[in-house]
């Protein structure tokens, strides 16, 4: 096994272009598990931890451009107000040790339907920035992930990071696990209110082959908010509307049964999380936050 250790982003892209089979590693919290189990034995490992360019985040006209090497811990400390749902999701990841090493870039690379960083990215229409020696491209996160642990990353590409609009309203993330920490989500739900655009973004985690947006539920609740003039009046959402929203989210889930939970439980639970996160976020909005 060869260990490639580029010192710059350019070198990293060149290394990837020279060795398509090289497996990138940043926190290693997914890669090392695979290697320890001898599930993969790559000829080349491409260590990105010495590449400074992907370990930064920056503001870019109302959006954040966050490098693949920014750890969960840094997202929690640096961006908790700017990207609240992502910060909340980051807090639920593993343990302090895992959060100190693990990255959103790695979560994107793994593309697990249970990846905790993904629903907030979907709910805020984030884009993934991919790069190769040939150039860069930006792909909406929903198009980036194509199936369980599958994505559109090309052999010669690396993930630079992601671009996500700064929160312009309250956001929430909720996760159900079978214990309180160190747990893969049984199901999860991310929600973002976009008051300027009069939009509501959602995403269900761990209840379908990929994270999925609950499109019908979004349209439904946007309709409710528009009809009642609630964005302007900051009035309450009716119980019935909240419940209907939850039910519509349930319908968007395509869960399976496994050791973590039954399909029936997952479907029901995402409905609960949807209702809850919407009511919490809306209460914040009403409070003028």
């Amino acid at each position, binding site marked *: 096994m060869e260990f490639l250790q580029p010192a710059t982003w350019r070198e990293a892209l060149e290394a990837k272009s020279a060795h398509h089979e090289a497996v990138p590693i940043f926190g290693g919290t997914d890669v090392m598990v695979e290697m320890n189990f*001898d599930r993969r*034995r790559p000829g080349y490992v491409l260590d990105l931890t010495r590449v400074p360019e992907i370990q930064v985040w920056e503001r870019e006209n109302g959006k954040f451009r966050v490098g693949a090497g920014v750890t969960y811990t840094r997202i929690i400390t640096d961006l908790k107000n700017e990207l609240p749902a992502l910060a909340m999701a980051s807090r639920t990841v593993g343990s302090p040790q895992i959060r100190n090493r693990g990255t959103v870039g790695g979560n994107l690379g793994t593309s697990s339907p249970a990846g905790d960083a993904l629903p907030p990215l979907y709910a805020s229409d984030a884009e993934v920035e991919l790069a190769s020696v040939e150039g860069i491209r930006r792909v909406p996160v929903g198009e980036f992930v194509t199936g369980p642990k599958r994505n559109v990353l090309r052999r010669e590409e690396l993930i630079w990071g992601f671009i996500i609009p700064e929160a312009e309203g309250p956001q929430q993330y909720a996760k159900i696990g*079978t214990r*309180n920490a*160190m747990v893969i989500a049984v199901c999860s739900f991310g929600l973002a209110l976009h008051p300027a655009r009069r939009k509501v973004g959602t995403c269900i985690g761990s209840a379908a082959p990929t994270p999925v947006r609950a499109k019908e539920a979004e349209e439904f609740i946007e309709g409710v908010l528009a009809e009642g003039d609630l964005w302007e009046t900051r009035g309450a959402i009716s119980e019935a509307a909240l419940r209907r929203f939850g039910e519509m989210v349930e319908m968007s889930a395509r869960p399976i049964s496994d050791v973590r939970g039954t399909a029936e439980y997952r479907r029901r639970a995402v409905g*609960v999380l949807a209702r809850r996160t919407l009511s919490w976020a809306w209460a914040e909005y009403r409070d003028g936050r």
Partner: protein
Amino acid sequence: MSMITGAPGRAIGTPLDRIDGPQKVTGEAPYAYEHHVESPLYLYPLQSDIARGRITHIDASAAEALPGVVIVITHENAPRLADTSDKEYAVLQSEEVAFRGQFIGAVVAETFETARHAAHLVEISYDEEPHDAVLRADRDDLYVPEQVNAGFPTDTEEGDFEVAYASAAVKLDETYTTPMEHNNPMEPHTTVAVWREGDLTLYESTQGAHPVRRTVAQVFGLDQKRVNVVAPYVGGGFGSKGLPHANTILAALAAQMIEGRPIKFALTRQQMFSCVGYRTPTIQRIRLGADEEGHLTAISHDAIVQTAKIKEFAEQAAVATRMMYATESRRTTHRVAALDVAVPSWMRAPGEAPGMFALESAMDEMAIACGLDPIEFRIRNEPEIDAETGLPYSSRNLVACLREGARRFGWESRDSTPRARREGRWLVGSGVASSTYPVFRLPGSRARVRYEGEGRYAVEIGAADIGTGTWTTLTQIAADALGVGVGEIGLRIGDTTLPQASVEGGSTGITMWGSTIFEAARVFRERHGQNPSEGDEVEAGTPENPETENYAMHAFGAYFAEARVDADTAEVRIPRMTGVFAVGRIINAKTARSQFIGGMTMGLSMALHEESVVDPRFGHVVNHDFAEYHIPTNADVGEIEVSWIEEEDPHVNPMGSKGIGEIGIVGSSAAVANAVYHATGVRVRDLPITPDKLLPL
């Protein structure tokens, strides 16, 4: 080193800091894998991919060709063992495969990584036969074992259960199940085996150095003197290191084939799910009958467990029911299914842990059916004597534990109506359960006392410290036995060069080793008086305890748990648990507290988390690591309050102590289940209590 050197004769009962604490936190205390050996080789096992059949062909050429590989061992080239009567230890002796994950070979290489990689290059063909790995109550091949674990009779009958049950005013007939569970000590099962000039040394992670020596000597046909087992520090066992398993034999086999080079073999976490024992799943039917006042008149407990086809281990799930409560009639039975599975074994409180989940859940249900508070119902059925032996108890303070626990927990104000309290989205409830564990005795320990001059005594016994604190507690016991301060004692344990000691099992450690040290000290003083000369030495064996003929000896306890259940998602949280124990004298309050907290946490874990999920198509545990086999994290364990009753029991042993290593897990799962019922009104009789089993709420 922090040590209390207080007055002689008063060490027992002091909360002495762990003597081995500094070595452990500085990394100086060697665990099995860490003993320094010259140029070791590394072993990685080959495990069967089928659950039943025979190996037809092995192609090891690619593995053997890998640089660094020393040998690939399979049944084709492994030496024959001297004694293969115990099939668990008949490692690599034939082409037969008896369960999925069974050791069918090993690669030995210069590095661990090479051995592991080479192991994946070995190609194995099988002639696969259909297997059967699922325990069900309606199987037609359940059999009656000759006896159950720990030598208890399989079935018992007292009075006429059928008649009494038929005429009972209040009845309960329910079935409770517990899943397969794996012990999962932090330190994996490890052997470093060195075979040199006919002598075999094993650095071993074990609950008993001497029992390992006996087994290995017998299996290899060696004189016991030629086998030495070294295990000074052990990172937990929970029973899975009580009996040696196939991994030790496999390491010794490899060492025999490559004389002179040490073989290191530590199981991976995943491998620990296939071959070092587990708790059998249980299916337990309980029937209770009571009169109008809530006096039990009929109790029956029928337990179904599984064992491996290659070796019988019949867990004694119904034995606690034989003595817990008073009744006019009682019946207990055990039935066993022999399956194509790995050999089940001891896991913390085998028998009592699953059995008392069932009985104490049933007692809760029955109390409700009788319209009684569950504490009052238990007190009403408190027996005068031990029904099994007809003997009085040496001490039995269950009622005191229930009362004291009720006071500490704040039980008085409890409204017995289920699902009657809500705080925001949380349904809140509380539950209680009793606990018990027998005072077992194991024969065969010896201790040596030697005066080393300048007031110091060497005390030697091949006992085990599996993380429980034996280094400290035996030092305290030796100090009191000799009437000196703990600072004058130089304890040596964990090695077969020391006098033989029984296994750390059945919560017998302190009872047996402590009694033996007391005896050796007594004989020492008798022979050499209070002013011995340097080098004076005495060795003595465990004394008999005639009181076992006169008294039934058990430890008792009571638990209280608060449960909060999310009304929408059914997530369960246990913010607090209270445990009160009556376990004779506490040797060391600090290490004892750790045992109780650990046991109760393990009971909480059993209640809410632990379940080894077997895929019936392949016969293996699918959630075979800590990502998917859950034990609680810190965030899952709320406040655990532990206390004990001052209990004087002059009959049990010279220390007045009862074993405490296992009692903490017995019944604590039922307290949680009963609290969840009280919170939600939903009775879950199948562990673990996962949210999906509680819905719809």
